[in-house]
């Protein structure tokens, strides 16, 4: 029992000290408090004899099982008071912590666009936040229910913003590549695409032809379905039409639902900017022809698309091992034969990254393949930092066991991985490399000795 006259600490600090002392071994009761009537009463309740004390005095009442425990508590008390006097703690205001929602980020940061890539089940909330904040949003996430897509796109229209996606793999807005994005030269072509790798392929070919892009706006694979009705395509077309930097619009899509095609055609007719519409499918455009039409529309001569071929063995069957869905579908049509696997499809991406980020599954398939193997390599931001590092040895191993390897290489030489560096590594390993997927598919088909030739 002790009274320290005139020593003041706030009640909260003192309660903490009482608690710390009370928790020490051998201490049965510890009351460290200013000697107010209330606290004196509390101390009397636990049977302390209180000497005269007032509210400006500090009351210290400790009961312990032994003298040693009491001594120990007294020393701890001194340490606690010393810590209080030092002011304790880490001090200084807490660092600003990261926002927890897109909504909160939009309040803290003057953004122009949001990129949402959370699991599809949760993408709606984040995308809605962006739209509510007046931001265009790219939804990289897949597995977003179509009703949610329609709702988001309707709300976006009200707010005058664009929804790119869901399941939108690439976009270039104001020079910033979002998602998987190639490093493209700036230029006059604005692209609206319902396919991520399709847009990447067309714009990379434009880049090889010396033609740059203003913006690349992905709209999501379902945008031109009858359920979604081209909602984002219409907004994207209008935005590019209004953009002074865009002199030509290229629209790349699978053939839309008939009623949607009609709506889109009418919108295209109303634009002041010329539009090249490339609809992908059997007997229609492929990505290379789409790029060629765009280049021609600008009055630029169509170049020879770069390729590096090496002699390949002839095989009896063709295996297409793809990471890009649109590239895979196009190659299957052009080759007209063979077994094609899209490793970017949902059934292969459950619980693992996209093959453009993690190539392990595809490399395993390559190690087992025989005959003629056709595969795509897509470069750009977001993709594997050096795909040939693991692919080239696998190509060499395939060649060593008599398998032909043909690669469609989508990228530019400004990409972080470097188109020429990747091409060289793959060619040295024994692959034939094409920058046109259509050309690669045609070449691979020609290597199938029996049947096709």
């Amino acid at each position: 029992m002790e009274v320290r006259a005139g020593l003041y600490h706030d009640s909260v600090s003192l309660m903490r000290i009482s608690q710390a002392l009370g928790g020490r071994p051998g201490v049965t009761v510890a009351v460290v408090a200013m000697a107010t009537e209330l606290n004196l009463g509390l101390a009397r309740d636990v049977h302390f004899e209180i000497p005269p004390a007032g509210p400006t005095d500090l009351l210290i009442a400790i009961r312990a099982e032994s003298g040693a425990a009491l001594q120990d508590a007294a020393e701890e008390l001194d340490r606690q008071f010393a810590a209080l006097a030092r002011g304790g703690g880490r001090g200084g205001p807490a660092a600003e912590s990261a926002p927890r929602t897109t909504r909160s980020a939009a309040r803290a940061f003057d953004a122009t666009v949001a990129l949402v890539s959370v699991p599809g089940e949760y993408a709606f909330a984040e995308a809605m936040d962006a739209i509510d904040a007046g931001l265009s949003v790219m939804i990289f996430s897949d597995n977003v229910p179509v009703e949610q897509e329609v709702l988001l796109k309707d709300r976006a229209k009200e707010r005058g913003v664009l929804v790119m996606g869901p399941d939108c793999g690439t976009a270039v807005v104001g020079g910033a590549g979002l998602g998987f994005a190639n490093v493209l030269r700036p230029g006059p072509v604005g692209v609206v695409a319902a396919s991520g790798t399709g847009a990447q392929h067309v714009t990379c070919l434009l880049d090889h032809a010396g033609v740059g892009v203003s913006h690349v706006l992905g709209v999501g694979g379902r945008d031109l379905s009858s359920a979604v009705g081209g909602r984002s395509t219409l907004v994207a077309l209008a935005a590019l039409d209004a953009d002074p930097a865009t002199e030509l619009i290229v629209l790349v899509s699978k053939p839309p639902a008939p009623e949607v095609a009609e709506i889109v055609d009418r919108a295209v007719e109303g634009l002041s900017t010329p539009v090249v519409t490339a609809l992908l499918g059997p007997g229609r455009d492929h990505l290379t022809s789409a790029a060629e039409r765009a280049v021609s529309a600008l009055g630029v001569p169509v170049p020879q698309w770069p390729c590096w071929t090496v002699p390949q063995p002839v095989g009896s069957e063709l295996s297409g091992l793809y990471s890009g869905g649109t590239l895979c579908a196009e190659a299957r049509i052009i080759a007209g034969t063979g077994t094609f696997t899209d490793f970017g499809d949902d059934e292969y991406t459950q619980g693992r990254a996209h093959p453009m980020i993690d190539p392990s599954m595809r490399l395993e398939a390559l190690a087992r393949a025989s005959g003629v193997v056709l595969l795509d390599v897509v470069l750009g931001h977001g993709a594997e930092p050096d795909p040939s590092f693991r692919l080239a040895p696998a190509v060499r191993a395939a060649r060593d066991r008599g398998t032909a390897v043909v690669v469609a290489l989508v990228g530019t030489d400004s990409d972080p991985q470097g188109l020429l560096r990747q091409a060289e590594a793959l060619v040295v390993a024994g692959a034939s490399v094409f920058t046109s997927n259509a050309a690669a598919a045609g070449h691979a088909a020609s290597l199938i000795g029996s049947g096709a030739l």
Partner: protein
Amino acid sequence: MLDGEPRVITTGAAVLAEALDDQAVPRLGVDWRPPLPGTSAALAKVLADPRRERANEVAVGRLLSARPALVGVRPAREVLDLPPRTFFHAGPPIDWERASGPMRGALIGAALFEGLAGDAEEAERLLLSGSVRLDSCHHHRTVGPMAGVVSPSMWMFEVVDGEHGSTAYCSLNEGLGKVLRYGAYGPEVVERLRWMGDVLGPVLAGALAVSGPIDLRSLIAQALQMGDELHNRNRAATSLLVREIAPAIVDASPEHAASVLRFINGNDHFFLNAGMAAGKVSADAARDVPGSSLVVAMARNGTDFGVQVSGLGDRWFTGPAGVPDGLYLGAYGPDDANPDIGDSTITETSGLGGFAMAAAPAIVRFVGGDVSDAIAATRSMYEITLAEHPAYQIPGLGFRGTPTGIDVALVARTGQLPIVNTGIAGRVAGTGQVGAGLVSPPAEAFTSALAALADT
């Protein structure tokens, strides 16, 4: 849409965020985590509700624009729908069977105070028999701290919202220690209540008649800038109230002025009850906006923690009240603590208390000992609130408004529960206050409200 230098918010995969960093595109990353388990379907429905954005704007706009003023002090029986043998209590509705120790103690005390029983045993029998009607304060424009028991003879602060015209009530604060609101009912408790009814109430009523209404919005704004958070610290607000009203007390009742002023001065929390009525009248202004996910009441009865939501009328959504994590008076410890109790969470509901911790460095040790923890506490509340209060500002955050207007959808999305500062009542009826600290509300109160909102 396509103009200007791109500035990107990234929510999700780090590899895509890094790709932007590699391009030197300015960006802000979201620290995204999955929502509370089982809420994603309800979240999608609530967020898709076309009424939501506007409804929340309207609801929180009303909360923020309320101008509470203390206009009078009057007996409960005159102003509330409170006939004899009826008591109001804190939190969602509860009966004697499920009532905790301090709630029972306060009801016993109120029965003794009202002369319905001669001693505690008789009061207990009376309450057990069900012949005293119990109802939630919140159902009657009223809030009460801790047990929050209001009986007809108690005197109430009367607070009017000058913007929307409605009225709210809260009892007068008895001080600390063995007091009714903490479940104590000894002779000194009842005697103090009688003095409050005979002297304190009438004197304050007379003083307010002289002084005219006291602007609580501006008083709270000033107190925040003087280190109160208006829930666990009311020292500045009480001092400001005394400054406002002391001359009028002397004018109105010279014979009682000294005893009344001494009583108010002896209790740092005297302002709390007036502040709670201000919170109640402001939150009530935001009620009944269809489609709004704004929380308009958080309250505990010592057994359940309940919330009410603007778009869901007077329905309560509850979960078990937690035991506060705090610091204890004297020799009391966690084993002596009752689960969370009281309507004082109306302060957090209206953007004060735990939400304004950064304004109250003097009591930061409640949140773990450090000023930076208090700032982090307030900052985290911006994640679950719809707005920043235009008048209630925090100097240490550059006069940023306090985070105001809890959104059940944001609570579910972030998993961040409201931070509540609170007193701790003794578990055993008759004990009184044992400590003070922080408490976390049960998540299910918010997720069940969200689910109900998805069904509207």
